[in-house]
């Protein structure tokens, strides 16, 4: 899809990179569990989720590269941008922690992703629309998987319950940033390209709180202090470490081919 208006084109590019960065960084985090999952089935589940997110990220980066200029590739955007140029939300860069942490971070992202894609499938940008229609089907398994473990761990033993509660406390303040909105979003909402996520916030917290309740965990208050900054390139310490692992090889040997 091509844009003649530069302002709109740049906004679509920025928005597409945000979608890509969220998925790329979460995928990289989850793939750290490859060979290290708590049981074989979970090793496979987390890496399959990572693979879906990587596939989605690739589609978004390819679109963003096209909107940048003809000399930029998807790989350039992944491997040759610095920390302050990544615009992912901070929740996706957080360490895996214990398995309860990995699961709750995933649940917060999965519910958000389903609400996002439910509207993005109607985008006036044909590429974003097509990717969303494809990706929304994948989020179904991600959510069922993370919710299932919420029930098992929250309602499990005293120890699993304690760890699940700790994960909820740790990640809660990272949930607010998923609903961050600035002039990029506003422009694209007006053009019918991006969904207005502020209208989905109530449904989001209602769904997450319902799952917490089913998991025998206390409901959480959405109207508390929340982390922010990721969309503007301000990140926690964790992102630098993950980029170091992810970008090391192509930066050491820029001409290496797969």
């Amino acid at each position, binding site marked *: 899809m091509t844009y003649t208006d530069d302002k709109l084109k740049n906004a679509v590019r920025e928005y597409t990179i945000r979608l890509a960065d969220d998925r790329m960084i979460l995928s990289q985090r989850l793939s750290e569990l490859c060979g290290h999952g708590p049981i074989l*089935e979970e090793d496979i589940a987390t890496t*399959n989720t990572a*693979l879906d997110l990587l596939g989605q990220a*690739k589609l978004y980066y390819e679109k963003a590269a096209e909107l940048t200029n003809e000399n930029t590739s998807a790989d350039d955007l992944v491997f040759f941008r610095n920390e302050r140029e990544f615009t992912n939300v901070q929740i996706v860069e957080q360490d895996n922690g214990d398995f309860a942490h990995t699961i709750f971070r995933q649940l917060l992202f999965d519910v958000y992703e389903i609400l996002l894609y439910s509207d993005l499938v109607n985008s006036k940008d044909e590429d974003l629309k*097509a990717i969303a229609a494809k990706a929304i*089907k994948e989020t179904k*398994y991600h959510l069922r998987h993370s919710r299932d473990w919420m029930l098992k761990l929250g309602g499990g033993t005293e120890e699993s319950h304690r760890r699940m509660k700790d994960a909820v406390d740790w990640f809660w303040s990272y949930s607010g940033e998923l609903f961050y909105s600035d002039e990029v979003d506003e422009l694209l909402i007006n053009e019918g390209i991006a969904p207005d996520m502020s209208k989905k916030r109530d449904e989001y917290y209602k*769904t997450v709180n319902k799952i917490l309740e089913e998991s025998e965990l206390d409901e959480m208050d959405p109207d508390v202090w929340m982390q922010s900054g990721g969309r503007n390139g301000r990140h926690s310490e964790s992102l630098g470490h993950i980029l170091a692992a992810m970008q090391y090889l192509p930066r050491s040997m820029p001409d290496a081919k797969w």
Partner: protein
Amino acid sequence: MVITEENILKILENVSDPEIPYLSIADMGILRGARIEEDVAIITVTPTYSGCPAMYEIRKRIVEELRANGVERVKVETVLSPAWTTDWMSDEAKEKLKESGIAPPGKTNEFSIDNILNNTDSVACPFCNSDNTEMRAEFSATACKSLYFCNDCDQPFEHFKCH
């Protein structure tokens, strides 16, 4: 041989899915079409999942199979829309899955958070047809399958997910 769309689709019946070798890419609904433009055979495929690692191999096999049959100039295009669904798999393909011990996908449900969280679809055991089965893992050997267990014949089996 005159190269026509029909011939090309016939030749491509021999291209199998790398992960499920007894099904062709046509059976799977991955092969979307073929056309000829200025002597170039243009083949359209769609990925099952965004990150499907078999797509590279599938594109390679298409080119190899056509070249082996005298079609030299080949271009493989990937399209995303309409998004791939298991509803495109033929009944014959579903039967082949079942014969090989994989429970085939049923009809897809309407997409909603409620439907996702309250999924009560039962999956019949491909060995003894019992509905007394339970899901053990949402993901199995490939992203498109989940792992089930049959409580009647005590067999684990894979289910090709409705997608």
